[in-house]
C-alpha cells in the first residue's frame, strides 16, 4: 500500500520511477515530502539540498538528511556517480546556468529526473495571443517583475535542449495537475498543448 495520496501528483509520478533501495539526491527538496515518501515506500538512501533555512531545518527535524545551501554549488562537491537518481523537481525554471547544472548532475548521478511547468500549455498561449500580456498560470503564478522563474520552458524546448547538451531522454511523462489538491492525470495526446508539467528522465549518452 502506498501513500501516494499524500504527496503532490507530480511527485507521485517521480516516486513511481525510482527503483527501490537506490541512492537519491533531491535538489530544492522543500519540506522534504518526496524524500520522506521515498524513504518510507521505496527504502531509498536520500539526501536533499534546500536553500531556505526554515525548510531545511524542517527536513532535518523530520529525520531526513538535508543540506542547507545553494544547489549549484553543493552538487560540485560530490564524487562521480554518487547517486542512482538526481531529482530536479520544478526548479529548472529558476536555474541560472541550466546546461552547466545538468552537466554536473549527469556526473554525480546515473539518471537525472527533471520536471518543470510547461510554458506551451494552451491557457498560456491564449493569454499571450488574445490578451497580449505576460502569461500567469497556477503553475507560474508570478507577475513578470517579481518572478523567481527566470526561464520559461516548453516540452519541445526541453527535448531539443537535452539533445543539444548530449542527453538521451529515456522517459517522458506529461501531466495535468489540479492545483487545488494533490490530484492529477497523465496526458497522452497533444501533450505540448495540454500538459501543465513535463517530467523527463534523462541520461548522459555513452561515447
Amino acid at each position, binding site marked *: 500500500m502506498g501513500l501516494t495520496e499524500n504527496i503532490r501528483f507530480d511527485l507521485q509520478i517521480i516516486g513511481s520511477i525510482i527503483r527501490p533501495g537506490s541512492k537519491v539526491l533531491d535538489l530544492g527538496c522543500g519540506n522534504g515530502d518526496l524524500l520522506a515518501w521515498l524513504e518510507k515506500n521505496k527504502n531509498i538512501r536520500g*539526501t536533499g539540498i534546500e536553500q531556505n*533555512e526554515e525548510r531545511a*531545518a524542517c527536513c532535518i527535524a*523530520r*529525520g531526513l538528511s538535508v*543540506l*542547507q545551501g545553494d544547489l549549484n554549488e553543493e552538487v560540485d562537491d*560530490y*564524487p562521480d*556517480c554518487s547517486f542512482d537518481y538526481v531529482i530536479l523537481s520544478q526548479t529548472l525554471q529558476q536555474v541560472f546556468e541550466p546546461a552547466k547544472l545538468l552537466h554536473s548532475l549527469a556526473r554525480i548521478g546515473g539518471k537525472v529526473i527533471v520536471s518543470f511547468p510547461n510554458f506551451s500549455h494552451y491557457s498560456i498561449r491564449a493569454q499571450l495571443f488574445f490578451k497580449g500580456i505576460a502569461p500567469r498560470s497556477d503553475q507560474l503564478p508570478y507577475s513578470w517583475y517579481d518572478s523567481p522563474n527566470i526561464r520559461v520552458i516548453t516540452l519541445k524546448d526541453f527535448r531539443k535542449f537535452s539533445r543539444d547538451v548530449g542527453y538521451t531522454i529515456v522517459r517522458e511523462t506529461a501531466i495535468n495537475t489540479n492545483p487545488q489538491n494533490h490530484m492529477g492525470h497523465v496526458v497522452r495526446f497533444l501533450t505540448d498543448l495540454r500538459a501543465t508539467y513535463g517530467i523527463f528522465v534523462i541520461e548522459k549518452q555513452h561515447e
Partner: protein
Amino acid sequence: MEAKKDRQFYTYAFPPEKMILESGAELGPVTVAYETWGNLTEKKDNAILLAHAFTGDSHVTENLKKGEEDKQVRPGWWEFMVGPGKGIDTDKYFVICANILGSCMGSTGPGSPAPDTGKPYGLDFPMVTIGDMVDTQKALLDHLGIQQLHAVIGGSVGGMQVLEWSVRYPEMVRCAVPIATTMRHSALAIAFNEIARQSIMADPNWNNGNYYDTGKKPDMGLAVARMIGHVTYLSDEAMRRKFGRRLQDKETFSFGFDVDFQVESYLRHQGNKFVARFDANSLLYITKAADYFDVVARMNHSGPVNNRDQNIIKYLVISYTSDWLYPTYQAKELIRTLKRSGQDVSFCEIEADCGHDAFLIPDERLTHLIGGFLDGVD
C-alpha cells in the same frame, strides 16, 4: 525518569600503566569527572555523549523536577536542551558529560597533584590534545560498558571533540553533531588564543605556572584572557544591541581609566567572575590543545567513498550566521570533506545575531532540529 546523579569520578591509568598521550608523554593516574542523566538501557544502546566547550564542565543541566524550579542551584550550560521531553530527551537517552582532560573542574589537569610530589603539576603537566581528551572519554565509556554511542554532540571546542571522536573511534559513533566549530583553527582564532595566553603569562603572579601555593594567583592576566575570549564569542550586532555606547552609572565621561561604558563594566564583570571558577594554567593548556587541533587530513580519509561496507556516520553540522570565531565557511569546508568521503551529512546555518555563543542561548529551532535528527537515526 531517574533523578540526576551528582558528579562522579573515574580514575584509571595508575602507574606503571600510565596513559600515553599524543605527544608521547605519559600521564597517570587520570581522573575523569562526569555526570549522567536518564537511564542506560539493558542493551546499553541509548547513550549520548555531550562534549562541553572549553571553559565548561560536566554540569549540563540540573534537570529540575516540577516544583523544584526555585531551588537554589547552579544551572547547567545546556539547561534548555537536555532533560525529560527536551531536544536531548533524558526519558529516551542516557546522557553523559565528562569534564575534559587538562581542565580544572574535577578531571586531571595542571592544578591536580602530581603523584610523585603531591604538589600541583603546574607546567610539569604534559601538553594534552583534543585527541587525548577524547581518549579519556573513551576510557570512561569502557568503564561504563558502553560500546556504541547513539550520538556525540558538542559545540565549539566540544565540536572539535565530536569530530575527533568520529575519526578516532568511528565504529563507536552512530551520529555526530558538531555545532559552531571547525576542523582546524584559523590564524584569527590562534591569534586570539595567543593574546589570552600572553596576558596570563605577563601577569607577575603567574610565576611560570607555580602559583598554587603562593597565595597569589594571576587573576589579572586570567581576567583579561577571559575578556578577550568573551569578545570573540559575541558579535558586532549583539554588542551594539546589548551595550551600544551607553555609559555605566554616569552622565558624562570620567576622562580617566575607570569604567565609563557599559561594555567595559560588563567585560570586567565577566573577567572577575571567571577568575573565581577557572584555573589560569588550564586555560593555557586547553587553548593550546584547540590550536593544535587539525582533523582535515583524517576527515578526508575517514570515509567509505564508494565502499558501502565501511562505517557511515550520520552527521548534523550546525553553524551560526554571526559566528566570526568559526564562521560558516569553515562548516562548509567540513561538509565538503564529508560529502567527498561519502558520509551522510545534514547541515543547517541558523540565522542568529548573537555570535559564536548562540548555541548556548535558548532557541526552539536548535531544540527542534537536534531532537528530530536524533530520533531519525536508526
